[in-house]
C-alpha cells in the first residue's frame, strides 16, 4: 500500500539518548529510511544507551511498519540497549492494537525483549 508522501527521519540527541523523529507514512513502501536509521542507531547502542522513536509525524502505518518496530526493539534488546516509542497518535495506538500489537496481547515467543515495546 502506498499511502502517498515520503518518509523522513530526523536524528537528534546524544549518544546516550538518541531520538529518531519520523514523519510520513510508515508502510511497506516507505520503511527503508527508518530501517536504515535504526540500523545505524543500533550499531552504537549498548548498555545505558537508549533510542527513542518519535511517531508524532507518522501519517499511516501498516503491518510492515509494525514489524519493523518489533524487529528494531528485538535488535536493540539483544545488544543491551533500549528502544522505546513516544508521541504515538491515538489512531496509531488504535491501529496497532487492532493488529494485535499491544502490551499484553502480542506474543514474542521464547525470545522476550524485556519491557514491552507496545506498552503505552
Amino acid at each position: 500500500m502506498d499511502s502517498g508522501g515520503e518518509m523522513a527521519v530526523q536524528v537528534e540527541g546524544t549518544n546516550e539518548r538518541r531520538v529518531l523523529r519520523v514523519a510520513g507514512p510508515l508502510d511497506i513502501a516507505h520503511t527503508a529510511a527508518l530501517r536504515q536509521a535504526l540500523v545505524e542507531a543500533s550499531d552504537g547502542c549498548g548498555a545505558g544507551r537508549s533510542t527513542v522513536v518519535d511517531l508524532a509525524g507518522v501519517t499511516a502505518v501498516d503491518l510492515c511498519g509494525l514489524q519493523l518496530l518489533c524487529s528494531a526493539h528485538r535488535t536493540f534488546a539483544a545488544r543491551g540497549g533500549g528502544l522505546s516509542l513516544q508521541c504515538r497518535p491515538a489512531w496509531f495506538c488504535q491501529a496497532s492494537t487492532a493488529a494485535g500489537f499491544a502490551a499484553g496481547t502480542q506474543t514474542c515467543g521464547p525470545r522476550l525483549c524485556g519491557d514491552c515495546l507496545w506498552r503505552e
Partner: protein
Amino acid sequence: MTDGHVETYRQEAGELLAELEVSLLELETRPDDGELVGRVFRALHTIKGSGAMFGFDAIAAFTHELETVFDRVREAGVAVTPALVGATLAARDHIQALLRVPDSETGPLAAQGGLVLERVRQASPQPAHPQPPDGAMAPDPAPPETGIQDPCSYRIHFDPSPDILLTGTNPLLLLGELRGLGDLSVAAHVDRIPDLSGFDPERCYTYWDAVLTTRVGENPIRDVFLFVEERAELSIARIEDAERSEPLRLGELLVQAGAVPPDRVEVAMLEQKHLAGLRGGARAPELVAATLRVPAAKLDSLVDVVGELVTVQARLSSYALGAGDPEIAFISEEMERLTELLRESSMGLRMMPVGETFNRFRRLVRDLSADLGKQVELTTSGGETELDKTVIEQLTDPLVHLIRNAVDHGIEMPARREAMGKPAVGSIHLSASHAGAFVLIRISDDGAGLNQEAIRSRALERGLVRPDAALTEQQIYALILQPGFSTCSTVSAVSGRGVGMDVVQRNLDAMRGSLSIASTPGRETVVTLKIPLTLAIIDGLLVEAGGRRFVVPLSHVSGCMELLRRNGDAGRETLLSVRGELVPYIRLRERFGISGQPPPIEQVIVAETPGGQFGFVVDRVIGDHHTVIKKLGRLFRDIDEVSGATILGDGTVALILDVERLAAAAIRESGCRQAARSAAESGPACAAPMRRVPRTA
C-alpha cells in the same frame, strides 16, 4: 422473523443513521478525530450486522462497502476528505431509502445504490474493498448472513504465507473485516520477526490468534479469508459453552503445570479475557439492557388508560367529598396521590430531549448552504430540554420551514456579509428552554432581518391590510404567516413560493402553540415558538357558566376575581380594571349562547394572551382539574375557540377553551380595544381584588 423484529430494526437503524449523520458532519470539520471515525465505523457496522440478521440483505450488502472504507480510515490512516464525507452522507441517505421498503422490493434502488457506491469509491483514496490477487473476481460485498443466532465464540488461527504481502493482500484489512462481524480480541505472534539485519520489509513474519464472538455463524468468518486460504494456515473452531464457563484462572494453572507451550499462554489469557468480558464486565450492557425499547403505541395506550384513571379518580374524589365517610375520604386521598404519581410517571415516559431533533437540522443547513453558495454554521443549545414525543413529532416540520427561511432569506451571501462588516460565515442558533408549562424554541440568525416596509407593501398589494392601517411591528411580522405570502420576487428550489410560514402557523395551532417574531434590520431575526410540554394531559381550571362546564388551561390563568355589576350596566361593559390596567373581557354565557340569568356576583378568570390580559366571565369557579385532553370530532374541527374536550368525574363533558383564540376573536369581532378608549372615560366595570385560583376540585 416477526414484524416486531423488523420494526425494531427499522427504529434502531433510523437512530443509527441519525447518529451517523451527526458524526459525519462533525467529521467534516474535524477530519483527524479518531473518535469520530470510530463512531462512524461503529454505526455502519451495527447497521450492516443487524441488517443481515433481520433480513435486510440489500442494506447489509450496501453498508458493507462503506464499512470497509471507514475501516481503512480507522486502521490504515486513510485521510477523510470533504468528498468522502459528502459521498458517505449520500450513502447514508440511500440506506435510509432502502430502510423504507421491504428488502424484496429494493431492486429498483439498486442502480442508484451503485452510483452512490461509485461516488464513495472515487472519494476514497483506494478501492473500497481489498483487491483479490491476480485479477481474480472480487468477493460479494457482504457475506450472506441470515437468521438470528445466539452469539457464539470462535477461536481463529491465521498464519499467512511470508510472501502474502507481495500479492497485494493486507492481513490487517482481513482482521478489520473480522472485527466487522462481532467482538474481536486479537493477538499477534511476533516471534518470527528477525532482527534488523535480516529484516525484509516485504515479508510477513506475523501470525495471529483471535477470539471472535458473533451471531453470524462460521461461514461468514471463512468468507473473510476466501482469497488467502491457499496462502495461509487457517483454522476456525467454535469455543463450546463448557469451555466458556471454565474458571478464569485456568490459563494460569495450565502454565504452572507446563501443560501448554509458553507461546500459547498469552493467547489463552487473551481468550479468557475476551470471554470474561462477555460474561460480565465491559460487554455486559449488550447482554443485559439498561433500557427497554417500547413501541410508541403502547405508551400512547398507557397514557390513555391513565387519563381514564384520572377521570375516575376525579369522580371518586367528588363522591368522597359529599359522602361524609372518613374511611372513604382517606381511601380517596390515597388514590388521588397514587394517581398523581402514576400520571407524572406515565407522562414522563413520553418525554424526549429535543436535541435529537435539533441534530437533524445540521445536515439541512449544510446542504442548503452548499446549494445556495452560502456559508452557514448551525449551533444549538438546550438540547436536553424534554418535550412530549407527540409534540416533538409535530415540531419538525415548522422547524424545517423556519430554518430553510433563515438560510435562504436571512443569511446573506458571503461577499455581501463581508461588505457589511459581518463574518462571511452566517450563524443560525437553535435553542430550547423551559418556561412554565411551555417550552420556548428560538431560531435566531444573524442575517438581513425582516424588511417591514417590503412586508407591508406586499400585504397592501394582496389586500391584506388597508392603506391607512396603523400596524405594530408584531402585526406586520404576523402578515408573513398568511397563506401564500412572500416578499421574494424569485422562486428558488428552497423557498420563495410563499408556502411554509402558514404551515408553521397551522402546525403550531394544532399543538396549541404560538409564534412571535423579533427582528433588527441588517442584524438578526429571532423567531420564538412557544409549545406546550404535552398534548395529552394538562392542568386546567374548571369553571361553570349557565350549567355548562369549561376548562381554562391553568398555564394561561393569572388570577380570578369577582365581577360586581353596576346597576343598569349588565352585559354592556367590556372592560374591567385589574391592578390599574384596563382588561377587556367577555361572558362565556353570551359567547356560547347560553340562556338564563347569571348570578348576582360573577367570577372573572384573567388569562394571559399574546395580546395582553383578557377576562372570561363565568358563573363560578369550581377549581383546578387534571384535564385529559380528548380530541373533538370532525364536526367541531372548524371551531377554533375550543381546543378539545375532557370527561369529568360525573361523566359529563367539559370543553377546553383556547383562550388565545377566543380572546383574539372577541377583540376582532366586538372591537374591545377601540371601545377601551371611549369606555375609559366612563370608567370600567368594578372588580374585587384579584385572588389566587382555588385548589379544590
